[in-house]
């Protein structure tokens, strides 16, 4: 299990949860019951992470290690980054008890607007990107208005949005594809920071960033532990605490090492990591985040507790629009142009990521990190099957079954956890 290196290096506190299950394998031995109880508790609450590690291991074996090669890990990051960005927004929408079916069309529209401005009008690349974000915010506000203030179910509003914004994409592009972007714009999705501070056959800067991330993680964990102790909250034993940090550090550094040996640190990974970090903290620690969970958990109770439900719902959709625009920029940059059919089915991948990652259909439950792991499960599978040359039709069948089984496994685990209380 120690050789399974999840292709995720999110250098923030919450990625710890994703790696927790790796930790015991590395630190195995010494610790006694403390350690075992941690493991069994995790087995119940984080089945999805175990599934992820198992899938990574499976494909590492099936592809004889190719799936974990430096080049391929870099590839997974580049190829699925925009789905992960969408999944961040989607999980928040789902926690609040809504759904957004329009994100694929919004990805297409924002990319198209950017392409028209940059390619056809020749404005600087960053003006195109800002325009795309502005369009995303307007689209989000549009959805938010109908959902929050008119009270139409999000399923209907965004189903309409899916058609509406696909149509507008066609209008904006006048039914043709636009290509290519200038090289600066392309760099958003395919640029690397490489050789900044040299290195001998590898990129020292990537390793440095990895090191900083690990140090930051260790520091924030230590601070949390201190605060919990000060408030007389239970904490895990010190050796276990250290083992956990060492394990996370090893995984992150192994991942950074593979990246450094390929093309260096992808810019898009920096964007993604920053978004995951920010949104994890927002969902967990901000008043806004709490209100999202409260609305999804019990709408009436939230209303009667003074939560401004309409405003919160509105901003949830504005945020989804913003992240759709970010995904639109990354996608258009990666595909080096805008196509009328861009982003089709992205909404389903993002929704699948959120649900595989433990979000509840009824709302109130879910995490950003969970959704990322859910997205990565889909990513590692698609990528692994592509490496193995599995037919597209079979890939689709497998992904469908995995979505179903992952959620069934999660439901089963939760039910078992629930009945034992």
């Amino acid at each position: 299990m120690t050789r399974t290196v999840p292709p995720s290096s999110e250098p923030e506190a919450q990625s710890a949860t994703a790696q927790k299950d790796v930790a015991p394998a590395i630190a195995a031995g010494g610790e006694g019951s403390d350690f075992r109880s941690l493991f069994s508790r995790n087995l119940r609450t984080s089945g999805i992470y175990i599934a992820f590690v198992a899938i990574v291991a499976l494909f590492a074996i099936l592809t004889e290690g190719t799936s974990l090669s430096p080049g391929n890990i870099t590839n997974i990051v580049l190829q699925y980054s925009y789905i992960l960005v969408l999944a961040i927004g989607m999980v928040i929408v789902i926690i609040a008890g809504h759904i957004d079916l329009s994100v694929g069309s919004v990805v297409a529209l924002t990319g198209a607007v950017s392409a028209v401005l940059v390619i056809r009008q020749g404005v600087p690349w960053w003006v195109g990107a800002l325009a795309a974000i502005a369009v995303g915010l307007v689209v989000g506000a549009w959805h938010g208005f109908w959902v929050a203030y008119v009270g139409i179910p999000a399923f209907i509003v965004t189903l309409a949005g899916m058609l509406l914004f696909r149509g507008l994409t066609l209008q904006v592009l006048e039914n043709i594809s636009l290509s290519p972007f200038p090289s600066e714009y392309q760099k958003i999705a395919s640029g690397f920071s490489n050789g900044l501070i040299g290195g001998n056959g590898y990129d020292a800067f990537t390793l440095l960033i990895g090191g900083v991330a690990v140090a930051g993680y260790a520091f924030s964990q230590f601070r949390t532990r201190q605060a919990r102790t000060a408030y007389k909250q239970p904490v895990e034993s010190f050796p276990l605490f250290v083992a956990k940090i060492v394990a996370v550090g090893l995984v992150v550094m192994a991942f950074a090492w593979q990246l450094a040996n390929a093309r260096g640190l992808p810019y898009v990974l920096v964007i993604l990591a920053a978004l995951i970090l920010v949104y994890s903290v927002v969902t967990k620690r901000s008043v806004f985040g709490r209100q999202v969970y409260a609305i999804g958990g019990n709408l009436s109770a939230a209303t009667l507790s003074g939560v401004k439900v309409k405003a919160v719902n509105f901003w949830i959709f504005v945020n989804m629009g913003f992240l759709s625009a970010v995904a639109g920029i990354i996608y258009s940059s990666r595909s080096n142009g805008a196509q009328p059919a861009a982003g089709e089915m992205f909404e389903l991948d993002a929704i699948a990521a959120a649900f595989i990652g433990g979000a509840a259909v009824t709302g109130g439950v879910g995490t950003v990190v969970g959704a990322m792991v859910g997205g990565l499960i889909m990513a590692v599978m698609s990528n692994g099957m592509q490496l193995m040359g599995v037919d597209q039709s079979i890939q689709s069948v497998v992904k469908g079954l995995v979505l179903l089984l992952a959620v069934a496994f999660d439901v089963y685990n939760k039910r078992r956890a629930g009945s034992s209380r």
Partner: protein
Amino acid sequence: MDNILEMRSITKTFPGVKALSEVSLAVARGEVHAICGENGAGKSTLMKVLSGVYPAGTYDGEIVFDGEVSRFSGIRDSEHAGIVIIHQELALVPYLSIAENIFLGNERRGRNGLIDWNKANAEAAALLDSVGLRENPTTPVGQLGVGKQQLVEIAKALSKDVKLLILDEPTAALNDTDSEHLLGLLRSLKERGITSIMISHKLNEITAIADSVTIIRDGQTVETLSLHAGEVTQDRIIRGMVGRDLESYYPERESHPGEEVLRVEDWSVKHPTQDRLVVDGASFSVRAGEVIGIAGLMGAGRTELAMSIFGRSYGRDVTGRIFMHGREVKARSVTEAIDNGIAYATEDRKKYGLNLIEDIRRNVSAAGLSKLARRGWVDGNEETKVAEDSRRSMNIKAPSVSSIVGKLSGGNQQKVVLSKWLFTDPDVLILDEPTRGIDVGAKYEIYTIINRLVAAGKAVVVISSELPELLGICDRIYTLSAGRITGELPVREATQENLMVLMTKDKELAA
């Protein structure tokens, strides 16, 4: 004596918890047998064992029904044998008609295999007649009140040739008239030879209707009392339930009312969709260190009055004035109401009061998050501390503040609701049915908490359907009828009788 049912030494264990331990229950044929016990005592678990929700093999012990050892593998099995359970939360489909509901899963088919609606409706009409419900069988169930829906449930049970009818808290949601009718119906079913088991918290109903009562405490049978001799009083039953004598249902309190805190003047509210006044020119006031009660029958507008004051959470065209400490305030939203020091704990804590899938901590902080936050960021450690303090001071029985609220008992859930509102540091607390559906011991604790609050100078408004409760804890009681305040009595002048007279006063007389 001929027993229709004997449950012998039933033991049911959940991982880590022994829910039932050697429980025995013997029910004589043709009697009304009551089961009482505090919440969490194991009454519902016992009934789930009986009805096959927990199938044979998952528990130890023996069930003998109608002379045969029975091993039910599911609800269908037990229903086939003639045992029908009617749950507290009614299991009817609101959009289907009465007849459709009665024969749901048990459809009346004609010769061609399709449902014969004429036959179904005719049979349904006959069944409705036998339960004394005068409604057209094609009326959608959603259009009926709770009391009538309860009757439909019973008609449905009768359609299945029921021998043993189990009712879980049948009158909890009913008003007095409907309760009377239901109890009368149970009597007439008894005459027809149908045995009933009734789980109830309402001891007066038990003494009025049951032939015998079995008391369960902490997963064990305490005793079975026969009610025929007439010597068993409510106090006697309570002693069995709590295992000690309650000196009184209501803790003593010295009353020292201070300055006026809340005054509501000429408050009127329209129904959200219909053109009628639900609250009509109501005025009342409450002082610091005082508990006032609002008494009224179902539909009198009690909850509507409270919710409309609490940030206009109910109705439209709200008019009237609210004064806090003598100064007029606006409470146009829940946030404004909270900011002005008003708190409202709802009558239905599961539906409107709590986020059941979250833990104690996040429920306690839900209404006062801004107090824990700086620039939009919540201090999680401080939040834990606040919740931990509440857990201790309110005596919430849970292993930790990370326990999921949905898994707590009703009384403990109510304490979480109170903790949530106390954390907003209100001057006046409006408590809507604060002890509904919670057991005697926990009720006493809730009353103690209320006393502690008024001792600390808070003003408390209690809305309750149980007049003895209002008489036991209030200083003053207002009566509400058809949206109007019809009277105001200091507690020493109030009796159930004179309150009831005021509560049933109609509009003309009140005006």
